């Protein structure tokens, strides 16, 4: 190390080394050997990654028999560290008595921590395996019930995983 911090080469390269041929051969050997190993990359967007059940994608609301399971208790909203969830309850004739007349998740605020899923007493809010989130402005990023409701059949894997590991 020189006084100004630059590296000083103590010994000069040999002529053989100066041709760089050995280094090129080394690199090519690695490249060629990798070509015959199994691939980890996807041809996105034609091919898509299918996450495991442990994956925390965007939170969704489970819909069962055409009705959301949610009873609008507001616990997800309270536990959310990023204050992404807004719930407004209302009364329903169904046995569950209350339902969310408004349920909005601000996907710009959401940090995918899964606390909402953990706190939910009804298994109503679930971290799905969806990770494709595109919006053009802040308003579009606020997902209402129309975007959140998902048939519970589609969330089967995640629910199984939760029951097993919780």
């Amino acid at each position: 190390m020189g006084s100004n911090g630059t590296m000083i080469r103590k010994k000069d390269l040999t002529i053989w080394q100066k041709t760089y041929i050995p280094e090129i051969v080394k690199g090519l050997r690695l490249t060629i050997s990798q070509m015959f190993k199994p691939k980890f990359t996807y041809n996105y967007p034609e091919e898509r990654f299918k996450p495991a059940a442990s994956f925390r994608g965007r939170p969704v609301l489970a819909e069962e028999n055409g009705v959301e399971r949610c009873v609008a208790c507001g616990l997800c909203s309270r536990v959310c560290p990023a204050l992404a969830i807004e719930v407004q309850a209302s009364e329903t004739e169904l046995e569950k008595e209350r339902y969310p007349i408004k349920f909005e998740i601000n996907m710009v605020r959401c940090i995918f921590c899964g606390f909402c899923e953990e706190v939910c007493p009804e298994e109503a809010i679930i971290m799905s395996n969806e990770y494709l989130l595109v919006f053009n402005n802040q308003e579009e990023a606020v997902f209402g019930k129309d975007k959140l409701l998902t048939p519970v059949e589609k969330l089967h894997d995640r629910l199984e995983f939760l029951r097993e590991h919780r």
Partner: protein
Amino acid sequence: MAKITIDGKEYEVDPKLSVIQAAAQQGIEIPHFCWHEKLSVAGNCRMCLVEIEKMPKLAIACATQVADGMVVKTMSEKVIKARQAVMEFLLINHPLDCPICDEAGECKLQDYSYKYSVGYSRFEEDKVHKPKRVELGPNVMLDVERCIMCSRCIRFSDEIAKQPVLTFTERGTHVVLTTFPGTVLDNKYSMNVIELCPVGALTSRDFRFKSRVWEMSATESVCTGCSRGCNMNIWVRNNEVLRLTPRLNEDVNSSWMCDSGRLNTFKFVNSQERLNNSLIRKEGTLVETGWDEAIAKVVSELRVFKKTEIAAIGSAYATNEDNFVFQKLMKEIVGTKNIDFVPHMIEGDEDDLLIRADKTPNSSGALQVGVKPADGGLDLKGIIKGIGEGSIKALYVLDDDIAAIPEIASVLPTLQLLIVHSSVKNHTTELADIVLSCSAYAEKHGTFTNFEGRVQRIRPAVATVEQDRALDGFAMSRWDKFASPNDRWGRPIKKDARPSWRILGAIAGAMGAKVKYTTAEDVFKEMTERIPAFKGLSYLKIGSRGTMIKTSETVSSSVQMA
């Protein structure tokens, strides 16, 4: 005085007290469900069991009178075990309804479950099912499954509301709270059972499912429903008033509040009928203008008339501060002697508990700060007569819907100029030439004087356009604290209204007077200098409980109008 020992410490207490009262006075909490300071002792929840030396068994602290030399243990192993057993019994048939229960967050059973219960259930059998969603009366909803049979509501209806309609039927775990056949829980104080209920069995039909308790902020204020001035909390979420609940004040309303006060005094604050900014009548319709233009218009219009042609009507709904600046502007700057206010009495609609026939919160205050005719000036009757005869041509009305009274409404169209302060569209604004939208009681600082002469403070709970919850020291919920302009819940509807004292101060300033008010407290300070009864008072001294002042006059019910 009796000497008793509680948890190893000796205290001198009044021998008339029960153990639970004596302990509470010393700041020791003995958990309880059925006992309530204001109701008779029932002793049926068994939660307040304590160990008393020389007594063979644990005794209930609520029904055991203090005796000299008594030694009480509230945290001994025996007591803790008994409490855990009581909690276990109570929770056996209590549904796991907390997520959908309006009481959650202010529930005694929830709190005690954390504090005094073992934290798990041994009960594997089916819970007893009972009626849910029972409409007990027009304002109260009952969920029998949640009831823990403390009987507070029954005792309240019998002893305080004097409408004994509630009772228990059946036995054991099948006990059901119900009304007697052919009766409903429908009295003027029925909603007090909602706060009395230690669980969520009795809930408000008006507030049902509107918000979770922890999402709201609470602001100490005073009810404007009548001249009692019950102390209450204003519960606000997203800048919207959602409910009013009574606040303990032994000198005014104890722990109670009437249903009318709870339900009828806040909805207009959120209403769509609220006015924005200031409005001037142009070609027959009221058009929104800027504040400066409206104030300039008020000044130029008032100058057209002779002093004797102008009259002013203050308001018993407005604060002392508003009325004080109003009468000062009218008497000293505009120079009219014709000033009075309209009393709103409903003769007969009163009782011994809280409700007063005077349906305004501040009639004695209005009188005291000087909303009364100056020497030789016209009183209300004179003003109405003057308007009818044409000798009064201009009228300035502070926040009061005087045109709702037929007698006054019939003469108002003959006026050449009608200036009105109002927070909502009403009969009077329909007729007005200039309307200045003033803040509602929930949006400003101020004081009211109740019928006894108690000056009490109101505080802003709802922000107007010019106010900011954080910067102006409002009570804030978690949502208020963390909202950003990008959040939908961070963009509440704010009304463009100003407190009347400020509008009036601006008018006085525009008419050439020196006005030095920047806050309501400045106005109050001037009141303490100029009105003998207010001498030595300050907002700090009034505090949250109010202060009695000497009242020289009371509102005469002979001038009743509505």
